[in-house]
């Protein structure tokens, strides 16, 4: 006979304000099987846990139910408590009477009644719980970082410095990411390249880091501690081991009209190219869409001139498979497509540009060698108008509902840099709100206004149109309550940022949660901000939410700390809630193995006694508990009902259904 203890938490007033916790605890005393029931202000506190431990010992409890917050919050806590008192940790069930009850219901009677049912349901389940033992699995002491921007670079360096092997998989031909495209960085106006490229070089030279550029993750198998990842190494048509980065091929290539994506398509580059001067690896890549040799078979000039003999037109994509213990996702962002924002004339006017394009126009290594010139006629713009929140904080459906977070600061930076370099330039900024939380951020913005005389106009822009070669920016000035039109030479749009689209594929491969805006979901918004709910997967940078460089670097280092903590372990405890076949009922039909996404089920011929001294040999299912992830697909598929799931057995769930429906 089970001896159940029930512990109802007040959670301060979080539960107690809408659920009569004392009544719930009182009612539970007369439930069959319950030998102890109590309530306490904070069950998760030291004292609360002590109360549980004491009750387990004093009343010889065989199972406990904690009526508290979500099991996703404190199940692990209470399992540890039970274990400390000598009870198997899997003899604990949580009744979620906070998130699923007190917080969503207002009527005390109604909420109390529901709480009673939820606790009863948990009691019904725990009575059928069985003690479970976690198995162990080894940890592969190597980490994978997906994305070679500043987030990936920082995470990789920190992990490698702790002594673990790290591979960076970067889909582009070089690491560096968005930060490599930036000119200066706020709020200190450091030159972006000056602080980034040394880190890129550190990655290249670090004996523990392997950079797999121009590569993509194709397949992910396994689980925390034991991921097996297939990586596509895209054909760059240049032998990475031979190329010396001399750039002669770039000079000689006759096909020079490819759009330079590193410069935001503002100028052109040859078919064979190195993305930028400080690229890591400093190895050329051929754009097959543009290369004459690859398209027509005639040309081959780069091969002729390559002294290192690195050009290989026959190169094909190759695949490598590697094992990892942990994976960091750092896939970054891109500015949104502005087709839906026709009112700003981005597609019709060359002189309406995005902030990232301006970044390239102001960069000494950019298409204009750092001289700010209008894309249309190469003239110095005299009046520049910035438009903020283009697609950010936009719930109309055209843009993104969230704040892109970085635009206020980089626009202040741009405005300041322009006024510094070209003091005769007029700079206007249309904004909805200026948001500058962060160390030295507001001071930075104030400098733009007070010291550099940037004209900030509170109001939104209705449209931008071309009149006699001038860009007319028509908007409202909400402070003076008037409609204004500013005749401008250059218009800069602070386009919203969104996660790099490839993150969707990565999320699917890793079975990592993703939200409606394609940001990866963290395990807990406050307490586990760098972990994905999928064990062993960590999130760094904008793939998790909009953030600037300082935040990205902090998050990347936090990821690294988590990864190091994981890789430092020799063995991990596995989830004991796995499938288990009842061999006496199994007829070896193979249906369970067909639905298993992990290949955890195999078949064995086993001998069974039939009685009367007779035996028979039958084929039966065997589950590998280290591989099974405990989804339960096989349990429902099994035609003879031989498969069950530990911790979520059919009997347990049926008893929960019964408890809920009991009138």
């Amino acid at each position, binding site marked *: 006979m089970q001896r159940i203890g029930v512990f109802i938490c007040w959670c301060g007033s979080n539960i107690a304000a809408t659920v009569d916790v004392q009544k719930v605890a009182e009612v539970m005393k007369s439930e069959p099987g319950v030998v102890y029931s109590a309530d306490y202000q904070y069950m998760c506190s030291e004292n609360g846990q002590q109360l549980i431990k004491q009750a387990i010992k004093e009343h010889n409890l065989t199972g406990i139910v904690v009526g508290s917050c979500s099991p996703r919050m404190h199940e692990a806590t209470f399992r540890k408590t039970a274990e400390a008192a000598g009870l198997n940790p899997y003899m604990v069930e949580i009744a979620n009477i906070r998130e699923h009850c007190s917080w969503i219901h207002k009527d005390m009677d109604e909420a109390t009644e529901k709480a009673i049912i939820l606790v009863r349901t948990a009691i019904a389940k725990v009575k059928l719980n069985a003690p479970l033992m976690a198995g162990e699995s080894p940890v592969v002491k190597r980490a994978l970082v997906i994305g070679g921007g500043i987030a990936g670079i920082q995470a990789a360096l920190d992990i490698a410095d702790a002594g673990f092997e790290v591979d960076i998989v970067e889909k582009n031909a070089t690491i560096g990411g968005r930060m490599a495209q930036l000119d200066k960085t706020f709020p200190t106006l450091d030159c972006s390249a000056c602080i980034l490229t040394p880190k890129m070089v550190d990655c290249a030279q670090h004996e523990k880091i392997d950079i797999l550029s121009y590569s993509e993750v194709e397949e992910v198998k396994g689980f925390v501690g034991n991921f097996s990842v297939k990586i596509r190494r895209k054909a760059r048509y240049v032998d990475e081991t031979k190329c010396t980065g001399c750039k002669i091929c770039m000079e000689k290539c006759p096909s020079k009209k490819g759009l330079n994506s590193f410069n935001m398509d503002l100028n052109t580059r040859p078919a064979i190219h190195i993305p930028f001067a400080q690229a890591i690896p400093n190895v050329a890549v051929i754009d097959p869409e543009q290369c004459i040799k690859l398209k027509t078979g005639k040309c081959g000039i780069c091969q002729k001139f390559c002294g290192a003999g690195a050009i290989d037109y026959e190169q094909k994509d190759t695949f490598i498979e590697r094992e990892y213990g942990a994976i960091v996702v750092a896939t970054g962002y891109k500015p949104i497509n502005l087709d839906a924002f026709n009112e700003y004339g981005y597609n019709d006017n060359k002189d309406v540009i995005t902030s990232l394009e301006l970044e390239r126009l102001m960069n000494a290594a950019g298409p204009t060698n750092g001289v700010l010139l209008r894309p249309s006629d190469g003239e110095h713009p005299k009046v520049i108008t910035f438009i903020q929140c283009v697609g950010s904080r936009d719930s109309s459906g055209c843009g993104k509902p969230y704040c892109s977070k970085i635009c206020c600061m980089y626009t202040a930076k741009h405005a300041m840099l322009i006024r510094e370099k070209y003091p005769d330039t007029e700079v206007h900024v249309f904004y909805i709100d200026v948001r500058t939380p962060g160390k030295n951020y507001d001071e930075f913005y104030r400098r733009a206004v007070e010291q550099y005389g940037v004209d900030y106009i509170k109001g939104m822009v209705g449209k931008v149109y071309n009149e006699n070669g001038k860009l007319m920016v028509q908007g409202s000035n909400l402070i003076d309550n008037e409609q204004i039109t500013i005749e401008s030479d250059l218009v800069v749009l602070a386009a919203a940022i969104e996660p790099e689209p490839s993150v969707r594929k990565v999320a699917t491969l890793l079975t990592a*949660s993703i*939200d409606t805006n394609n940001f990866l979901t963290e395990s807990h918004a406050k307490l586990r901000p760098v972990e994905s709910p999928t064990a062993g997967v960590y999130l760094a940078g904008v793939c998790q939410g909009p953030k600037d460089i300082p935040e990205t670097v902090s998050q990347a280092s936090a990821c690294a700390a988590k990864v190091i903590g994981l890789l430092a372990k020799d063995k991990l405890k596995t989830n004991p809630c796995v499938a288990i076949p009842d061999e006496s009922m199994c007829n070896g039909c193979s249906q369970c193995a067909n639905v298993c996404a992990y290949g955890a089920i195999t078949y064995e011929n086993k001998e069974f006694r039939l009685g009367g001294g007779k035996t028979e040999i039958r084929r039966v299912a065997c589950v590998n508990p280290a591989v099974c992830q405990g*989804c339960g697909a096989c349990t*429902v598929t099994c035609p003879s009902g031989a498969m069950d799931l530990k911790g979520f057995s059919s009997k347990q769930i049926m008893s929960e*259904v019964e408890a809920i*429906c009991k009138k």
Partner: protein
Amino acid sequence: MQEVTTEKKEFTPNIVAFCCNWCSYAGADLAGSSRLTYPANVKIIRVPCSCRVNPMFVLKAFQQGADGVILCGCHPGDCHYVTGNYYTRRRMALLFSFLNYMGIEKERTRVEWVSAAEGARFSAVMNDFVKTVTELGENKRLTDLRVKEGE
């Protein structure tokens, strides 16, 4: 039976919701922490994946007097267990059409995809489902009469 119906003032349905641990249960948690209300007659059972829900559990719920059953899982393609929710979708499509044939209206059964970030959607889905089932009234099909007698 006559007595029972006259006694009842307002019908509130009893709803069993099966939520997968990774998306929908977390979505329900988010609805809670965002204080997005839905009726108290929705009671959630946590399962690792929506594909853990055996048609038997749904039948059991109706047999025991549930008025509606809803399964929530990760969006197609986002299943934590890669393919689990696809099995759910197929299994339940079959089961629900059988149930409909037996007189348990198809509006009483539902499969919905709710991600961990969709607290608002969870609440909206539950509000809508409760409203639909309330309009249909009490479910009498399949109910084990012995359960009623115990009242």
